[in-house]
């Protein structure tokens, strides 16, 4: 009986795993087929393997420009949100002052504001600043909307350092600035890596803000490229799948290397290990 129920667990577990994998494999292998092959026999190995979908995309400057744009925006917004959030979280974690919880609550409320709520005024603001079709027009608002989550993850981590550490540093003549820069940040590398990875993934996958801000095709990020590609080549499934595969590859590779950071960040608490 025990054996039966245990095998049943395995069956369920791997069925679910298969359901997760099917779309990914469908996309990756589909990119190696012709559209005719996909229509005829979407299951099984491509026969014969077709490489032109991938090679043509990898040889096109459009694709690489979109990779560059996505990367640029991800880097800029991460370099903005992580330092600013770290500074704020430092104050929230290690200073007692009137209004602290109020400010902190204001930041946490940001979790409730989907970017959609602010998208019209943001669009108008970005337009007035002349930042339409400019990577900063995406990176700046994205960083701002990333602050709540980043501060919420960093604060308890910063608060977990013993007060003696700061006192000892103070006795040695180390003020809050040096303490933050030379002691706290170096000791917080794991959690900083975590929030950075989350910021990069979030930016890489962002859609609504780039959709509104970036109208010139030269400034598009990958998600915009993918949607455009899929409407432009509606009939050519193989090419769409190849493009989709190539655009999700970086996120999956990052996940393969930083899975621990991503999971740790999202479940926090566990971060302190």
């Amino acid at each position, binding site marked *: 009986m025990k054996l039966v129920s245990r095998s049943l667990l395995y069956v369920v577990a791997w069925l679910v795993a298969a359901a*997760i994998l099917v779309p990914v494999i469908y996309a990756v292998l589909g990119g190696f087929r012709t559209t005719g092959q996909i229509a005829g026999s979407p299951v099984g190995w491509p026969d014969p393997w077709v490489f032109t979908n991938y090679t043509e995309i990898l040889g096109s400057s459009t694709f690489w420009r979109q990779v560059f744009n996505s990367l640029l925006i991800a880097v800029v917004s991460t370099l903005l949100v992580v330092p600013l959030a770290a500074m704020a979280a430092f104050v929230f974690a290690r200073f007692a002052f009137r209004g602290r919880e109020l400010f902190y609550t204001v930041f946490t409320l940001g979790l409730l504001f989907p970017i959609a709520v602010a998208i019209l005024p943001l669009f108008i603001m970005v337009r007035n600043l002349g930042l339409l079709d400019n990577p900063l027009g995406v990176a700046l608002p994205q960083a701002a909307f990333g602050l709540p989550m980043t501060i919420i993850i960093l604060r308890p981590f910063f608060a977990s350092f013993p007060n003696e550490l700061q006192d000892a540093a103070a006795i040695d003549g180390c003020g809050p600035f040096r303490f933050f820069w030379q002691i706290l940040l170096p000791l917080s590398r794991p959690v900083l890596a975590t929030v950075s990875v989350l910021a990069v993934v979030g930016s890489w996958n*962002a859609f609504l803000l780039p959709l509104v801000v970036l109208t010139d095709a030269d400034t598009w990020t990958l998600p915009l490229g993918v949607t455009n590609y899929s409407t432009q080549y509606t009939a050519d499934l193989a090419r769409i799948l190849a493009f989709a595969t190539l655009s999700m590859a970086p996120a999956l590779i990052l996940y393969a290397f930083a899975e621990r950071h991503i999971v740790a960040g999202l*479940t926090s608490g566990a971060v302190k290990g």
Partner: protein
Amino acid sequence: MPAGRALSRPTRRSRDRRRWVTIALFLLPALVLYGLLVIAPVVQAIYYSGFDWNGLGSLDDFVGLENFRRAFSDDVFVGALKHNGFFIGLSLLLQLPFALAMALLLQARLRGRALLRILYFAPFVLSEVVTAVIWTLMLQPDGLVDQSLDRAGLDPLIHQWLAEPGIVLWSLFVVISWKYFGFHMILYLAGLQQIPRELEEAAMIDGATRLQVLRYVTLPLLGPTIRISAFLSVIGALQLFDLIWVMTGGGPVNSSNTMATYLIDWSFKRFQFGYASAVAVIMLVISLLFALFWQRFVLRRDIDGALTTMGR
């Protein structure tokens, strides 16, 4: 400490001022960015919602609450609201229990569970856009899903997955669950790890069955995690946009609109910025009311816990 230093020790007041300057210097950059690009736009949206405005001319046609009245008397908007409700309901009733079941299953010391966990969570890091594009192709007529059903002899089950009003929400829900159940699962796993095994073992020794242990020991102790995961799930369902925009654009005939797709439709396609702002405000108010309700009656006092106290 040398005597000279002690003499020149700053007075209490100047020390206090220095402290405030430090706090301000650290806090201001984040506060400015957040104030300018999150708070200000949200406030502006509230302001715009009182006008009939196309986003370009001057804001001079004040219409009071007319935009709100119009939204609630528009069947399409009310439909969108209901669709958000549909996703909230199904997420709570199906997706989260499923995620919990998978978390418990992975707790059962299966071989390869580390790999399984990584697989289950993987869709979470994919963009909604890529997810939407791939699933759209799989679900299109005579696509992978239809062909598989056909080969399995289940061809009566074949539907126009994204083109039938009665079916499309369910199709979207499956895709959303595919992408997000892994996230909730890892929350539950983190919560489960914090439950001391001795508690469950003690209950077993006292003669409790597995189901009783689950019902009376594990689930209550997992309560905080479940409440947070439910909270995040509802907030997420209220904000659904990317996936639906790419897969159906809210169609067919508005049968899969959400508040967010409706908002974007009226702003960037029909250029009624005032009206769309009213929709944004409605979204905001619903999110806030829900958060207040949840904090008051369910979480008591930790939204702070939204991400951090879980698993502690």
